[in-house]
């Protein structure tokens, strides 16, 4: 996405808040004018002090009155400006995040898989956060900064051109100095970042493997290795930290020079014959000289931050622009809530992420209601892709899936999915209570129904042994439940409301035998009388299936029941006798 386009999109985001932004800008003008006017008023007051016995106290009183009004107006305007900026930004952030979540729900799952979860997560969390920071700074500092610079220049030149030129010529020096130093320190920072990365890696690894280190009594050698890194890091860290910390004193020094020059020139001019420059003007210039570099420094900070924010906005928009999955195929009419029995036909189904590489193709078969289909084949043969297509997580490139003769393209996804239950090997649990997890998608379920489902799934006994039983809050990803227990919970989730079609993923080695027996029993309860697809690893399951689909390299190479396939002496036969 081009930057210009991103700016347009950002403006579009901001647009609904336009009145608030205009208000904020007005407040900024008031605030800046007030800040710039105060030194002038101070100067005016000083100029009314004509010397002993000649001070125009009444005049000073008047000046101070204006001073007070200016000050209060400026202060209030500044506060209101910040409030409106905050409101605009936080609102945008809130709405963008919500839109992002909606997008996560509406894109095809294949898009999420392709983009990577970490990437989308960082777009939704840190990119939005950085966009917010950038917008906030942009609103609050960019505008006031520019206004301050213009205002200062205008006020200065209106008062005295010569001193103004001195200020204008000298102040960029501090900016140059700052950028010069930051360039010089860059290499030190790089070296530091590299070592820091190494050290963090070392810490991560050692602490994560702390039990192992102790098992080998290798604490000392690990500590030794760490000390070496620690020493090296401290050395580069000193260089980087010192060089970066000289920026402030150096800018301060340049500022001091500007201040001295303004003082000298101003005084020389003021002392000149018939000079119009008064002491008050000089004091006003001195405070401008003090303030003048501040907006420059701020703006340069804002610009980096803003560039960052634009890059983040680009990533956010890119995600928001990804194509949604189609609920109903374009141009087709939806079949409203057909009653599905579980009869399924797959015709010429094909899918690939990357159009040059076939992932799954030529899938054809028919399943009568209530039959059990075992899908077998080596890793990467396309079993998972097939399941994703069946659930319409992925959109097929070609072919269709018919339920009771109705193409799944014209069945609302929501309806279709409520007719298919799945238990995948990669279990997913929410950080919520056990009961909430079982009643997932069925908030209305009563505690009795939940317990009933858990009992049928053979999960009740271990749930009761948890600290708070059904009210135990699971930590992220099921916390310290074992893989088998997690799968039992997922089974209970389906058990609560068993749909006519099932997709089951049989566990491989990570689950112990005793739990596996429970899972097998639970699966059997689920499958009774229902059309079921089982990604199978156990011979007994495969043997009992009505139809075995043998997949290899994205294609069904053999299908039939156990005996038929054995007779064929093909790939299936080879696999069993491997």
């Amino acid at each position, binding site marked *: 996405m081009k930057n210009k386009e991103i700016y347009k999109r950002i403006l579009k985001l901001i647009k609904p808040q336009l009145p608030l932004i205009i208000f904020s800008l007005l407040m900024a003008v008031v605030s800046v004018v007030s800040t710039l006017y105060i030194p002038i008023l101070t100067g005016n007051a000083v100029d009314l002090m004509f010397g002993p016995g000649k001070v125009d106290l009444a005049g000073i009183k008047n000046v101070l009155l204006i001073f007070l009004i200016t000050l209060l107006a400026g202060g209030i305007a500044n506060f209101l400006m910040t409030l409106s900026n905050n409101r605009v930004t936080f609102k945008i952030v809130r709405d963008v995040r*919500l839109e992002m979540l909606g997008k996560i729900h509406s894109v095809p799952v294949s898009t999420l898989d392709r983009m990577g979860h970490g990437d989308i997560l960082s777009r939704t969390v840190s990119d939005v956060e950085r966009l917010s920071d950038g917008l906030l700074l942009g609103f609050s500092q960019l505008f006031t900064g520019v206004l301050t610079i213009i205002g200062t220049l205008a006020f200065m030149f209106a008062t005295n051109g010569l001193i103004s030129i001195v200020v204008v010529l000298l102040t960029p020096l501090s900016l140059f100095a700052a950028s010069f130093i930051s360039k010089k320190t860059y290499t030190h920072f790089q070296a530091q970042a590299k070592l820091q990365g190494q050290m963090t890696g070392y810490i991560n690894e050692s602490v994560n493997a702390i039990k192992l280190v102790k098992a080998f009594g290798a604490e000392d050698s690990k500590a030794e290795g760490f000390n070496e890194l620690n020493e090296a890091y401290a050395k580069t860290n000193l260089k980087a930290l010192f060089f970066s910390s000289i920026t402030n004193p150096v800018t301060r020094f340049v500022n001091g020079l500007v201040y001295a020059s303004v003082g000298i020139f101003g005084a020389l001019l003021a*002392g000149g014959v018939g000079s119009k420059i008064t*002491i008050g003007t000089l004091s006003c210039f001195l405070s401008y000289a003090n303030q003048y570099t501040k907006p420059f420094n701020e703006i340069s900070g804002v610009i980096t931050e803003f560039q960052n924010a634009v890059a983040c906005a680009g990533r956010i928009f890119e995600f928001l622009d990804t194509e949604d999955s189609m609920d109903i195929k374009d141009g087709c009419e939806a079949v409203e809530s057909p009653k599905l029995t579980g009869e399924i036909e797959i015709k010429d189904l094909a899918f690939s992420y990357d159009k040059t590489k076939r992932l799954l193709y030529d899938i054809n078969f028919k399943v009568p209601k209530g039959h059990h289909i075992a899908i077998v084949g080596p890793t990467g043969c396309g079993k998972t892709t097939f399941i994703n297509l069946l659930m319409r997580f992925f959109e097929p490139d070609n072919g269709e899936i018919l339920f009771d003769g109705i193409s799944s393209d014209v069945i609302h996804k929501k309806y279709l999915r409520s007719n298919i239950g799945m238990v995948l090997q990669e279990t997913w649990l929410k950080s919520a209570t056990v009961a909430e997890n079982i009643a997932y998608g069925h908030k209305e379920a009563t505690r009795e129904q939940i317990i009933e489902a858990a009992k049928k799934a053979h999960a009740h006994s271990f749930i009761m042994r948890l600290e708070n039983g059904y009210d135990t809050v699971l930590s992220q990803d099921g916390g310290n439940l074992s893989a088998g227990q997690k799968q039992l919970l997922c089974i209970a989730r389906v058990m609560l409301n068993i749909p006519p079609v099932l997709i089951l993923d049989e566990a491989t080695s990570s689950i112990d035998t005793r739990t596996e027996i429970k899972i097998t029993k639970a699966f059997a309860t689920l499958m009774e009388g229902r059309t079921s697809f089982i990604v199978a690893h156990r011979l007994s399951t495969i043997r009992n299936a009505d139809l075995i689909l043998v997949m290899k390299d994205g294609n069904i190479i053999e299908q039939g029941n156990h005996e038929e396939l054995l007779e064929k002496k093909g790939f299936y036969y080879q696999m069993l006798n491997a």
Partner: protein
Amino acid sequence: MKQLLKYLKNYKKECVIAPAFKMLEAIFELFVPLVMARIIDEGISLLKETGDKSVILKCGALLVLLALIGLTCALIAQYFAAKAAIGFAKGVRGDLFSKILSFSHEVTDKQGTSTLITRMTNDINSVQNGVNMSLRLLLRSPFIVFGAMIMAFTINVKAAIIFTLVIPILFVIVTSITLTTIPKYKAIQKKLDRLTLHVRENLSGARVVRAFDAADEETDEFTKDNNEFYSMNRATAAISALLNPATLIIVNLALMVVIWQGGNLVNDNVLKNGQVIALINYMSQILIELVKLTNLFITINKATASASRIADTLAINNTLEDNGTLNAKEYIDSNEVLSFENVSFTYPGAGAPSLEALSFTVNKGETIGVIGGTGSGKSSLSSLIMRFYDASEGKIKLFGHEICEYSLNSLRSTVSYVPQRAQLFTGTIRNNLTLGASGASDEELWEALRISEGKEVVEKKEEGLDYVLTEAGANLSGGQKQRLTIARAVAEKNPLLILDDSSSALDYATDARLRTNLKALRDRMTLIIISQRVVSVKDADKILVLDDGKMAGFGTHDELLKNCEVYSEIVNSQSGREEEM
């Protein structure tokens, strides 16, 4: 923070020099308004009256000189502050790392590794920053604030009284606003973590959310937290937004008083115009320094929070006592290698015991299989032998002595252990293999690799033993890693080897060869194989069957088939099972 101060001990000199030079810089800065006042009051009138520029030029030169000296002082101060802060952080980091490595498993579990890593990284960085900034500013900023006030007093007492009033008011406002927002920002961060969790779950559970048509529920939950995040942000930012205008108004009100007083005093011939300007300048210096001071407070606040977390971690008492004096290596000739006498074990904080009343004996040269379901206590068993935890009841004896009689280090370096998770470290294969066998020769390592069936893995690498593994051994497959972890344990040549379910990523044939290789070492090594696979344990001299933490059987395969129901159940469930389909 106090407990950590000792780490600054070696940097006493730096800790004095840095703030001292910062103060010097401040003093020079405080002179600037006085010099400027002289330019205005004496310089300009002298120029007007006699055309003599000398005072202006002299004072101007003095201003430049002040700036230059100020710069020098500042640079010196920055250097020493950085040096002290870094040295401090280095010391804390080293000690904290050793401390973490010394933690018992119970402590590690309780703290959580991610917390410990945060202590080592973010927290230490934050404390380092705090020390650095404190050395630079903690003295300088208050010094300028009070210095400016004192300088104002030297100009004129009457005009300066307002300074004594304005400083405490500013201080109270700035600190109270800052202190009220700090905990609020913490709460906001927590809310953000919540939002992150929502998004993470919606991504990892994309399929389930869709399958159960729960997008609306998820959105509702997210919206609730998202809205709260919004209101919290707004409320807190509104308080912060007060800071700027409030300080500005107060300082300028004081300025008005200075101008009014100044006007009167000039009228009474007590003050000159330039001196009034100097007073005005002191007022603005105070404002600038107070803002810095506020930021410093925030930094220090963060740093002290981090520091107390670090101090807490450093102060954690290890739950495992290491009082044993015997060296396990001296007793390895004992014929009885291991015995459990009525051992029970409950994980700290757990409701039910993981192991209950376990008794068995292992003799020299035997191969013992341990089998059972998840949660049956298999892994707890090895944790007890390695003394990662102490048994709650009963006695565990190794080579005829209770394991707590040995020093922890000698115990663990006498028993070799291969954990379930194949963990390796960044570095060469050689470095990894010598983790517990420092000084082992290349031949010895190759021999260990041969036994562990890992020889070909290493041979295939051009660099051989010098092949460099990336973090956590990410450039090897699961099976390859597992073979190396076994080799690492075998290389120790210890009299007892425990394989804790550590051949799960090996295919049957390799697993079988591995067991044959290990059996060949029986004259010098006793072997305990913990597994879920019947094939892995069935040829063992004795098999210990665990069920829900209790011993369901202890005997040979054939004996158990006859009289152990749990065992036959496991055997039946695994027969006919096809792997890798």
